């Protein structure tokens, strides 16, 4: 262990973190002003700043990862550093789980507490009587106390197909990983390519589902707490699938360049963990948001 310690790679100075900080600052400032401009329907500099921030972050990611990849290819990284990366990624995924937990918690509370109480459950008979006496506490909440109406999204059809696609993609991702670990580059490329295609199909179908929901079901972001939880949960999940797909594509490009070996492929492993995490979130989503 002492030897491993002695070779722990502490990088020299790097310009990328401060570039990233500027980028993130621009994104936050720009996003805040964009939201403001859109809500007031005014022309403003928000979106310009936001776009600039995104460009800076893209440059930062490119430069930072290029440095990392070069260091890794030059053999500067020890197993211990690999452990640091893996543990870091695992804790990052845990933080993502907690982010989704906030929205699942909101869904649980709205469905099990807020809506029944508005309907007079527990000791809230007067709440119902005084506020909205005609309100019917059912879930999915197709008619809000305020009177907004919508139709519920079924689980059969597109959501079920999407579930099959994402679960399959988890398997193909795993087969790709096995191919990498066994040194079978053909298997790796084939299954990784399949995973990317499945991810893209998922995203396309999710988009189609949103169009269907908006135009045929009247289910929008403004449709009360049912629509809110539906769109924020599936929307944030979709953003994670998008990010995961981009990561997979970058892995694919790196594999074409001959990167990674059976025992040195942290980036691939992290991407694969991320993909399985996104899949697990979807299964929870499918059961809790759609089926139940």
């Amino acid at each position, binding site marked *: 262990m002492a030897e491993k*310690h002695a070779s722990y790679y502490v990088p020299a100075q790097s310009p990328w973190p401060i570039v990233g900080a500027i980028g993130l600052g621009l994104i936050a400032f720009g996003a805040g002003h964009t939201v403001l401009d859109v809500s007031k329907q005014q022309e403003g500099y928000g979106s310009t700043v936001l776009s600039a921030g995104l460009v800076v972050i893209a440059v930062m990611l490119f430069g930072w990862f290029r440095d990392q990849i070069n260091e890794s290819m030059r053999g500067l990284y020890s197993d211990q550093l690999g452990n640091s990366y893996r543990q870091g990624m695992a804790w990052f995924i845990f933080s993502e789980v907690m982010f989704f937990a906030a929205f699942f918690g909101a869904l649980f509370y709205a469905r099990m507490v807020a809506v029944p109480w508005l309907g007079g459950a527990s000791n809230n008979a007067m709440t119902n009587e005084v506020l909205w006496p005609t309100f019917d506490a059912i879930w999915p909440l197709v008619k809000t106390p305020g009177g907004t109406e919508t139709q519920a999204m079924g689980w059969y059809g597109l959501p079920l197909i999407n579930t099959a696609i994402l679960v399959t993609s988890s398997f193909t991702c795993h087969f790709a990983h096995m191919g990498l670990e066994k040194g079978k580059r053909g298997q790796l490329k084939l299954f990784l390519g399949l995973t990317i295609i499945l991810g893209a199909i998922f995203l396309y179908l999710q988009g189609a589902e949103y169009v269907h929901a908006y135009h045929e079901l009247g289910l929008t972001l403004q449709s009360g707490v*049912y629509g*809110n939880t539906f769109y924020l949960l599936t929307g944030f999940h979709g953003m994670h699938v998008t990010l995961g797909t981009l990561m997979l594509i970058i892995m694919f490009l790196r594999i074409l360049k001959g990167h990674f070996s059976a025992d040195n492929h942290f980036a691939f492993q992290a991407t694969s963990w991320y993909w399985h995490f996104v899949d697990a979130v979807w299964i929870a989503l499918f059961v809790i948001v759609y089926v139940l």
Partner: protein
Amino acid sequence: MSTAVGDIHHDHHHHKPSGITRWLFTTNHKDIGSLYLWFSFLMFLTGGAMAMVIRAELFQPGLQLVEPHFFNQMTTVHGLIMVFGAVMPAFTGLANWMIPMMIGAPDMALPRMNNWSFWILPFAFAILLSSLFMPGGGPAFGWTFYAPLSTTYSPDSTALFVFSIHIMGISSIMGAINVIVTIMNMRAPGMNYMKMPLFVWTWFITAFLLIAVMPVLAGAVTMVLTDKYFGTSFFDAAGGGDPVMFQHIFWFFGHPEVYIMILPSFGIISAIIPAFTRKRLFGYSSMVYATASIAVLSFLVWAHHMFTTGMPVFAELFFMYCTMLIAVPTGVKVFNWVATMWRGAMTFETPMLFALAFVILFTIGGFSGLMLAITPVDFQYHDTYFVVAHFHYVLVTGAIFSIMAACYYWLPKWSGHMYDEVLARWHFWLSVISVNVLFFPMHFAGLAGMPRRIPDYSVQFADINQIVSIGGFAFGLTQLLFLYIVVKCVRKGKPAPAKPWEGAEGLEWTVPSPAPYHTFETPPKID
């Protein structure tokens, strides 16, 4: 290949970079620790200036100096800055400086990310402060940003508040990941978990809490954003949501958050008291288990902030008993500190003075917390100055005093110089007296019914508020003395030996003072 690697190591480990890029591009845990600490002090003064505005307005009944809306912005931003800008970054700075040295690691596990997690903070606070100058003003809904104050009735600038909180959260999560991975992966051979200094242990658990709850805060602000700007109704009963749901989500973050702001203090105090009593810490393992119990319980008590929202009686009882249960592990800690001092050869240098004040005054804050935990009594205390007194005892005489203690204790190691002991004791005594003049009478104002977050009050509270304000101004001015002491110490203090405190223990005292730019590149051997 391997020679090239060796050369690179050799090269950058012997030259300390200079100029502004040293700080902008740094990957050194000591530099980043200093950045965090200086930033947190700057934020402490900024948030403190806002507290001065609050106390000046409350010096007399009636409205004198500021508009009520501006007063609300001051209470809100004072809270946000002190929580996210002063206390949390100060602890992260201490973690950066001390954890690698305490466990015999060459640096933090992920040094570049470490730099990133610091440098996004100034941007987050610049954005937050910029919102104060926008039309309609900055956040004015209290640091807890309850809906519908933060949704229906909030100023236009709320979107900036939301995104600045996102950045602060990202910073905290990355900092916490770094701490946790450093502790799990970078300990020197022989440094078992149960040999780690308690500061490392308490930060280990704090980091876990941070990773678990900062994303929930991100979820809460996101829902506020969509409710305000995109027509969702998470916190609007007309759409099937519930404003009380906001409080559940917020306090699910918020209660672990208050332990995030005190657990590292416990670690600091557990280092300082043994050093100045020249005895080993009493009950090391019970301290570890107590810290872990507090962390677990912190997830089961959030609704004690919401007793008056009309929860079912079962929920009120559950949260009341769980909250009271926390007194047990906390009591274990206090008794252990007292038992450590029992028959010790005690001396009273400034770190020890702050540590002793911590034990006594934090315990007062703990007891008023216990009073607040009693549901029927809380109906009387809720949203009064009693609550303000309570959380300022645990945060100022708790968290902040422990940070002061830590600064005096480790300044010789950081700077290589001793601070001026006479001035430091002046700082301590002026602080400890003024802070009690400031916060102790607030208990009585609260018990007599003075509500918090209101710029005006009934005339019968005038005397108490004048005393409180005088204490506040005195405490605020005293902290400028702290700045002077630190600057004087860094610039021209007497040279410090490697181990300036006779009874101090730990790996950080085995390296010279000031600690070399890189320490433990070859790990020490721990028996």
